[in-house]
């Protein structure tokens, strides 16, 4: 059973959750990456792009673009199954394992994203709460 039945459900959960981060303190972390981050999803198919908004410190910290809107060339790309993405944002995925098993494919300077990883522990429970709300809606 897939977590998301269709692209709309994927965008409505993971995408909307990203939007909640744009105004949060953790949203500022995107400036440590230093460029747009593209998420490519399969089963269902989808594309979500984070585009940092200058200047650092302002709100929102980044914009969230979907599908065909996501045209800006990304600095970093993460490609994965939508199910894997859901588990990642719940904190259930070991990144090293996921890369080794090709559940997650990263293109670009991965080290820049690794800087964010320690800060995600605070984000995972918020995603889980948000996702259960989205599923109930």
């Amino acid at each position, binding site marked *: 059973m*897939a977590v998301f039945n269709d692209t709309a459900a994927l965008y409505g959960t993971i995408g909307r959750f990203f939007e909640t981060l744009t105004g949060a303190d953790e949203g500022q972390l995107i400036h440590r990456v230093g460029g747009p981050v593209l998420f490519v999803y*399969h*089963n269902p198919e989808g594309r979500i792009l984070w585009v940092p908004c200058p200047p650092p410190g302002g709100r929102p910290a980044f914009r969230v673009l979907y599908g065909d809107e996501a045209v800006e060339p990304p600095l970093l790309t993460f490609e994965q*199954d939508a*199910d*894997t993405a859901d588990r990642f944002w719940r904190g259930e995925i070991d990144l*090293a394992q996921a*890369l*080794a*098993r*090709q*559940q997650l494919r990263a293109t670009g300077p991965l080290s820049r994203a690794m800087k964010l990883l320690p800060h995600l522990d605070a984000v995972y429970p918020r995603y889980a709460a948000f996702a259960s709300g989205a599923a109930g809606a």
Partner: protein
Amino acid sequence: MRVRAAVLADYGRLGLEELDLDDPGPGEVCVRLAAAGVCHSDYHVYTGDLPLPVPMVLGHEGAGRVQAVGPGVSALRPGDPVVLSWLPACGRCGPCLRGRPELCRVAALAGEHGTLPGGRTPFRRPSGEPVHQFSLTGAFAECTVVPEAGAVRLPEGADLASAALLSCGVLTGTGAVWRTAGVRPGESVAVFGAGGVGCSALQAARMVSAYPRIAVDVHPRRLEAAAACGATHLVLAGPGGPLERVLDLTGGEGVDAAFEAIGRPETIAQAFNATRPGGRAVVIGVAPPHLDVSLNAFAFPSQEKRLLGCWYGESSPARDIPALLRLQEAGALDVRSLLSRRYALDEVGEAFAAMLSGAVTRALIAFAS
């Protein structure tokens, strides 16, 4: 001698033809086929994915009786029941001397040329045009001529249909588990592709008490066959791939040994990705020779994963087929459950279609006796 044979006239064009068959030369034997298994390798030759010279007599999993022997053949006599080996090792080349007869250079070269080791083919069209033979066998013919080492003697009374299946799929699948991966009791295994080879691997895993034994396929019918061959868990691979399911079944760790019995880059990567750190993945499936596979590079050192190839089950047919026959006699190896349907020599095309649709585990060409 005049024989009927299923001849690949050109890629994608298979038909029944009457051919002239030479008498066996020195060190060769003529075998009258009773049964021949239909294998994915035959289909790969048919499509041209396994590029070999045409015209060619297909078929390489055969069993029958010796019809005649050439000069110098001492171990076989007319009437002896035999099973064909599509890799008759020369015993003298580098790989043979290193104890790897399945990599025999002489047999491999003859196989590529579609001839016997001397460079000649025993089949001829009535016009005189030579017709190649697939992998030193050409088992889709009423009779064929093979090197003496390519005909392994069977005990009198052996079931020739079962023996035909032993000669390729069963040797390969069991050898991959026992020899290439060296699976030990209690180890977890996953088999990707539950055709004849995959189902043989599952039986081999059952015999050494591997657990769990996970079968992965896209055809529900093939998973049923896998369950009959000892699979304890069945994974129907969907659009997202089977990896998550295999991980779930192994506490998130992956299996000790994964076997790829399909021959596709995607499934080879899946099998590798489904192994636990320190595990091993064995590629048995034969992909077209121009394809590459992409794997995570960091996984090799950081997780000590091993990727192994397996050709013909690292077997020596004269040593291993008698052992498989004894296991069959003891009830540990069930070859009959692999055998789904019999076809006549002029129905090879139908047998291919049934194999591709997942309707059969192993199709067999049965020759009128």
